[in-house]
């Protein structure tokens, strides 16, 4: 319960920073101010400035927006495609359709999201869209598998049999009975994939396969400042902390939600 609160608070802080950056940041992130370069944290620049004199705090705020947007859309792709596929596969267990869905899932799992990003970049060149597609594609089998597994066990339950005896078809049962009963699982997994998405986005932009300059992103900030790390550690520390705290917050939230929503644990408590 405490984990949920702490995690939720951390996630909300970064979400708020991301939203705020849409309308206001302390400094313009694209404006270079060589006179104010490499300033340590404090004073006019709370988190200091980089070697171009850009304000780190402002860049972290915009970076939060980029990371959260990429990860969120990628989770959306995973849920939007994976859940319907998983539900449909579960209604026809063992059919050719189910077989194709499951084998394609296995196939995607053989391509870590980094490799997908590499392939896309090799063909189309690097962009934020690449990152979204690469992470999104990898999320599809995650949700398809989870949904199918959970739906299959529900299809054996007597309340689903009762709905079938009441003449309801598979599509309607999937929406009316299966989906509400796996929503908890999806929320928890969604939180986990969200945090993994943030990590993946940071990794991709770190090696230059994600968001392109001048838009700042946490991964890029690290890559740009890596060689200056010994001179100005804050350049490395702040983007790192931003990633860690966001991911930590989402993970704590996911764990907390699971404890809160898991009927087994809840039953044991009541």
């Amino acid at each position: 319960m405490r984990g949920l609160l702490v995690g939720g608070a951390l996630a909300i802080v970064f979400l708020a920073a991301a939203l705020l950056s849409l309308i206001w940041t302390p400094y313009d992130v694209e404006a270079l101010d060589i006179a104010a370069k490499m300033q340590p944290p404090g004073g006019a620049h709370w988190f200091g400035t980089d070697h171009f004199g850009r304000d780190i705090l402002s860049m972290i705020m915009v970076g939060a927006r980029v990371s959260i947007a990429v990860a969120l859309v990628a989770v959306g792709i995973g849920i939007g495609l994976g859940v319907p596929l998983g539900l449909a596969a579960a209604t026809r267990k063992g059919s050719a359709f189910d077989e194709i869905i499951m084998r394609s899932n296995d196939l995607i799992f053989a391509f870590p999201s980094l490799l997908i990003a590499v392939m896309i970049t090799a063909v189309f060149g690097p962009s934020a869209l690449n990152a979204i597609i690469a992470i999104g594609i990898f999320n599809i089998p995650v949700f398809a598998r989870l949904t199918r597994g959970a739906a299959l066990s529900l299809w054996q339950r007597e309340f689903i049999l009762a709905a079938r005896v009441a003449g309801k078809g598979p599509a309607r049962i999937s929406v009316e009975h299966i989906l509400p009963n796996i929503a908890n699982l999806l929320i928890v997994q969604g939180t986990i994939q969200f945090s993994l998405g943030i990590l993946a986005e940071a990794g991709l932009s770190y090696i230059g396969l994600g968001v392109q300059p001048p838009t700042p992103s946490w991964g890029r900030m690290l890559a740009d400042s890596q060689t200056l790390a010994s001179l100005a550690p804050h350049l490395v520390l702040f983007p790192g902390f931003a990633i860690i705290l966001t991911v930590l917050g989402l993970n704590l939230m996911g764990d907390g939600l699971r404890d809160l929503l898991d009927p087994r644990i809840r039953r044991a408590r009541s």
Partner: protein
Amino acid sequence: MSLLQIDNLHLAIHDQPILKGITLGVEAGRVLGIIGESGSGKSMTASAIMQLLPNGTSMTGDILLEGIALTDMTETALNDVRGRLIGMVFQEPMTALNPLLTIGDQVAETLRLHQGMSRREALARAAEVLARVELPPARFPLNRYPHELSGGQRQRVVIAIAIACNPRLLIADEPTTALDVTTQAQILLLLKRLVAEDGMGLILISHDLAVVADIADDLAIMREGEVVEAGPTARVLREKSHPYTRALFEASSHQPDRRAIPTEAPLLEVRNLIRTYPLPRKSIFGKPGMFEAVRDVSFTLDHGESLGLVGESGCGKSTLTRAILGLDAAQGGSISVDGETVVAGQRMPTGLRAKMQVVFQDPYGSFNPRHKVSRLVSEPLHLLEDAPVGPERDAAIGQALGEVGLDETDAQKYIHEFSGGQRQRIAIARALIIRPRLIILDEAVSALDVSIRAQILDLLADLSTRHGLSYLFISHDLHVVRAITDRVMIMKSGQIVEEGATETVFADPQHDYTRTLLAAAPVLEEHVS
């Protein structure tokens, strides 16, 4: 001195009292039966003797094994007692064994632990112990894994583990509840023989009076954490001095008052029904084999009639039920309800579905936990073309709930607010709401405590009297089937081997299998006379 003496045992988990002053004794060479419904504390008594208690347990009172207080022992001393002086057998043979170890190693482990045997010695001895529980090594080699054995065979392995070191006391907690009636009879016989041979004491815990009455020398009746009556079996069953014993006894042999008059007009006609499954391929390139779960089954159920379908697990009765309900497609034959027919290969038409409904076994799994009772009960209205809406719908829901003895206001509650018995009433209300002619009761009372079961049987009898409902009553419990059906069918290996008026079949079974079943079923009445 008693072998085991429990004195004034109080036990609470997180300050929730579970046992309230239990006093019990077990003598060497005798069987103590502990009877109780769910929540009576009978299993917790077993855990207390083993001193394997959940976290947060507080306990007062004495548990003395041959005069030595188990309650005062250190954990190390208790580990030495468990398995050596006290053995235990559990309810679920399917999960009680480690799936990754051979049965030989699992039996041998007890011996190596307590008797310091080498692996070779222990395995040799394990083979002897397994032979004692009728798993001769010639047919059941030590290197078998649990998944290669049936439920009854696995329970024998669990018993072998428990008796490997010739313990003074054996505790069996619902050892046969998960088993078929014929297997149950064999396991009970085995336990009885082991007690006689080894002179150990046996505590047999069960919810089923008839099971225990058969082999127990002494009985203890438990209720809500107390022993309400205890004594020699014959005396307890004769005197029934505590009202709860009486109630339990009556509920166990309850005969609901059913006055429906069966007609000669057929309602459900099943003709030459065939249901096959593909088996896993034997080799990668071979053709998959076919398993015939239902083999050419035909029968008729008349208007107003209650027809029983009895068989052990795997006999095909559930598969048959699912095919009749249109949940799985049949591979051959036809099903007619009230003149409307569906043949194999066709989808079941809505009109036909609307003529029958079902009540399942599990009162906890039968409802979507996220819906209110009103939505749950009204789900079958989906089958009607002119389903009532608005206030009419509410009225229909209220009426259905009223029929099963629940209140109209219950419609606004969620299912977790109801007990098992109430849930089964809601399941019946759901079946009733579209006024079907036929209700299929698939083990509908099997998961209920006897007292609740008696009430539900009364309700079913009453509903069939009032509405002229027909029942197809599927059960493994011969006693219940006898109480509520007019006719009965016995199913084995996908076929109906015997069929006839219930009383005739029970009084004068014709088929060998029916005789075996009836002989295996524990009967309470015998002990009273």
